[in-house]
């Protein structure tokens, strides 16, 4: 049936979103982001999220490089990276990533290198999970848009 593919994909999308909200991976800020998407910018959410991925990976690389330095002591610089990560994560609704950044920042404020290392691993894990799930969401969205855009000739 014509609309069934698009409807099923729509249900899949909503199920995945509900799951991500329930797990605390995303919060209502993600919904606010979706509300900014319209016909004039139909890819707004994926554009913003892709910039977020690009910037986040740079931040994670910088954080790991700092912590791996033999004579590491620049907790202040680490705090600056974390502030940026926190800000961008909260702005796209990436709640769990943001929360790990808060714990990570607390470890930097205590000059706790071991704590920072643990927090970094957790952050990398949460970020990876978020990225995979959002990619999955965007893929379903693309498939739905394709399915909804298919036209068949009328049957007489």
């Amino acid at each position, binding site marked *: 049936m014509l609309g069934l593919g698009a409807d099923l994909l729509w249900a899949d999308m909503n199920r995945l979103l509900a799951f991500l909200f329930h797990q605390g991976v995303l919060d209502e*800020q993600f919904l*606010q*982001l979706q*509300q*900014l998407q*319209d016909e004039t*910018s139909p890819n*707004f959410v994926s554009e*913003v999220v892709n*910039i*977020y991925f690009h*910037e986040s990976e740079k931040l994670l690389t910088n954080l790991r490089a700092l912590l791996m330095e033999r004579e590491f002591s620049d907790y202040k610089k680490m705090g*600056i990276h974390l*502030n*940026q990560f*926190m*800000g*961008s994560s*909260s*702005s*796209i*609704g990436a709640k769990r990533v943001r929360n790990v950044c808060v714990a990570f920042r607390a470890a930097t404020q205590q000059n706790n290198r071991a704590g920072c290392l643990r927090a970094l691993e957790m952050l990398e894990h949460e970020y990876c999970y978020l990225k995979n799930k959002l990619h999955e969401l965007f893929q379903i969205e693309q498939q739905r848009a394709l399915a909804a855009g298919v036209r068949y000739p009328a049957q007489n």
Partner: protein
Amino acid sequence: MIVMANNKISALIVDDDSIIRKIHKTMLERLFNIEAETVKDGKEAVELCRSGANFDIIFMDREMPIMDGAEATKQLRAMGVKSTIVGITTRAGGEDREEFLAAGSNHCFEKPLDRAKVEVVLREHKKFTI
């Protein structure tokens, strides 16, 4: 319901994060019909205002390189800038808020800036009526 009175509101978004500048600009324009310019640190904001640009509202990030939000707010007030200044910080605790308010900002919110927070600011603005 908030209704816009005579003129369009103008805003300046000051944040070193390109993602946040994009989201905030789009939110202000799409949800509130507010024209928004963006700059990436406090020094640029100060120089823009010094050059004669006027904004009804300035959304000012706290943590920025070159010049942070509290310092930029202080300098803007010292220049006589009367815009509503809204400080935005990643810290929930009172220290940043106190610093922003002491520097002369009208509000200070924790990130993210969302619809409800913008409405709080607009309710106090003379260009809006309820």
